[in-house]
């Protein structure tokens, strides 16, 4: 036997629930729109910052290009070439030798690939290049690798003087 139980019969149509769903949908839509808007603004800001840092584009007016070129030349002249090259040449006296030196005007970063006898020599080399102060930049070891065919200098490393922190990677 089943006992008598209550029931709920509603005469008022559920308009308020529908309204709640509409409010929820509008809120979700607004959140999605605002997030997208934020992303677009953020992207635009990044592009604007990158454009400001870059030299003038090819299709810029001639005077703008000239100004950008002059600025780059001025910065290139400010680079402490004698000090850097002196330190690199001094490597030849130690257990270290330079395989490659690279300095690009586009990003103004300096990259040096060297080969050393061991990690102690690499540490000495890093200490030497760090004597050369580059404004806004810091020398770091970006990667190391071991060359088994090079008996005298098996440890190869890439040093970089770049803006901000660079995550190093070790390759054995």
């Amino acid at each position, binding site marked *: 036997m089943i*006992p*008598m139980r*209550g*029931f709920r019969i509603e*005469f*008022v149509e559920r308009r308020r629930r529908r309204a709640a769903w509409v409010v929820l949908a509008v809120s979700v839509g607004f959140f999605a729109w605002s997030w997208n808007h934020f992303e677009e603004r953020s992207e635009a800001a990044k592009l604007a910052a990158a454009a400001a840092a870059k030299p003038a584009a090819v299709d810029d007016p001639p005077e703008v290009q000239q100004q950008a070129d002059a600025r780059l030349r001025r910065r290139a002249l400010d680079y402490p070439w004698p000090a850097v090259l002196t330190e690199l040449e001094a490597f030849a006296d130690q257990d270290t030798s330079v395989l490659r030196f690279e300095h690009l005007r586009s990003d103004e970063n300096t990259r040096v690939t060297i080969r050393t006898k061991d990690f102690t020599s690499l540490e000495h080399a890093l200490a030497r290049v760090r004597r050369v102060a580059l404004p806004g930049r810091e020398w770091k070891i970006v990667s190391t690798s071991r060359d088994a065919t090079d008996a005298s200098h098996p440890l190869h490393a890439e040093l970089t003087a770049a803006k901000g922190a660079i995550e190093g990677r070790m390759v054995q």
Partner: protein
Amino acid sequence: MWWEAPTSWEVYLDTERAIVRRRDRSNLRVTWKHVGVVPRSGLADALRAANAKSPRATGSLSVVLGSSLCRFETLHQVGSVWRTSDLVALARSRIEQRMRESGSSLRVTTEAIWDSSAIACAIRTDVYANIESTAASCGLILASVRPWIGELLIGIRRQLKDAQAVALQEADSVTLAIAQDGLPSIQTLPARDEPSSNECLRLLAVNSAIPLSSVRRFRLNLYSEKGERRIRHSFTDLVVPVST
């Protein structure tokens, strides 16, 4: 506080009178206030007067209807293939046939409470329109209009336990709700005083072929004093058991 919950008004309505209560919610506390028993025609004025004292401008109105305003119909063996609109159409035609009332003058709604049985309830369109206009004239949102017997059976289910027949004596009607052989049935007769109420209940029990002694009886204590007992949701505190 920058936001406060609106005041809720709860009204019990039968053919002649209305019981009005106010529910306030602040700081997660719900407080009830018994406003009073007023003639049905004076409900709007009573709500307006009470609402004028309320610090909050908006509110909602929940109405429970006495059985004298409701026409019940139970639909058996409807199964799960029936849509709600089909159930409402069937209930409307049956009530129309039984009460000899025009279907267009009734507002019908239903709820399936057992696997294959549904209870439908109809009220006159003008009764519903009157409730709607009362809410609108008082600036209240009409939150719900429900038959009281259904709410009551939910509210006092612990007292019912395994009762299969429940009788409710209201001021102007007597209702017998039974679950015989798992099939629900609700019958109502108008009765305005105690002797006629008892006689009507006896008739309903005979009609349903159940002994009167097996019926769990309750009575609406309409003039319960304010503060006499703790106010509960859906006026369930106004119901007192009647010894048979």
